[in-house]
């Protein structure tokens, strides 16, 4: 059941990435806003990946869990965005 829960949240993340892509496709301004958001998120992601020990202590989770979370977020963004772009 825990796996089903995680899978559902993963699907929600993928759909949310596609939704962000859809929002970006509405207007050039929204595209810029989403691009900035994506760039900011990617920088934050990179910082979290580099400073994993500090961030895991701050979030009070294990380093393995943090790395799994970061990889899942990356996968969600890539899959969701990729499906939107390829459709």
């Amino acid at each position, binding site marked *: *059941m*825990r796996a089903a829960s995680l899978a559902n949240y993963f699907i929600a993340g993928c759909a949310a990435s*596609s939704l962000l892509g859809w929002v970006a496709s509405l207007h050039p301004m929204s595209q810029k806003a989403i691009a900035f958001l994506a760039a900011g998120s990617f920088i934050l992601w990179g910082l979290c990946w580099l400073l994993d020990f500090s961030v895991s202590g701050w979030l009070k989770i294990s380093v393995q869990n943090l790395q799994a979370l970061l990889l899942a977020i990356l996968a969600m963004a890539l899959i969701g965005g990729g499906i939107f772009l390829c459709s």
Partner: protein
Amino acid sequence: MLLKMWILSGTAIALWLTPLTALDKKVSWHKAIQGLSLCGAVACAVGAGDIARKLAEENEIEEWKTRAIKADVADEIAVSAYVSQQSRQQEAETLLASPGEDVEEARKALEAIYSNDLQEAATTTASENDASDLQLWWKVSAAEVEGKTLTWIVENILNMKGRKFTEGKARLIELKKKFGED
């Protein structure tokens, strides 16, 4: 709940993928439907995830309950065994420590305490004895019908030879009194 979770999960995947692949981005109302379906997909997936999380927590609580019940039962058994052992030990010590005159009183007191258990056991023993006596009487009767002598019956059926012969004879008379009248 489980069915709802799976339905929501399937709906989320369908709402996420179907409009993106089936509808055209250039047509305005297609695009609007895509946006709505993506919002719906996110909502369904989050709902399904929440339900699955609740179910997982409930399962975990059930497992804890089962473990707690098992531990309680094991604890109760261990405590009752310990208490029983201790009480028996105390009874034995009391019997050994008390002088000869008090032994009979202590025995009677203990008998009164455990009368229920003893009664059950006594009933069982008495009925078992009756059954074995009856079986023996049937053998004796069969031998008498065959024309066997009293000595033969005592020696071969009651298995009381030599010094025990008198005792066997008495037992035979007792059996005759007990079952012969019927």
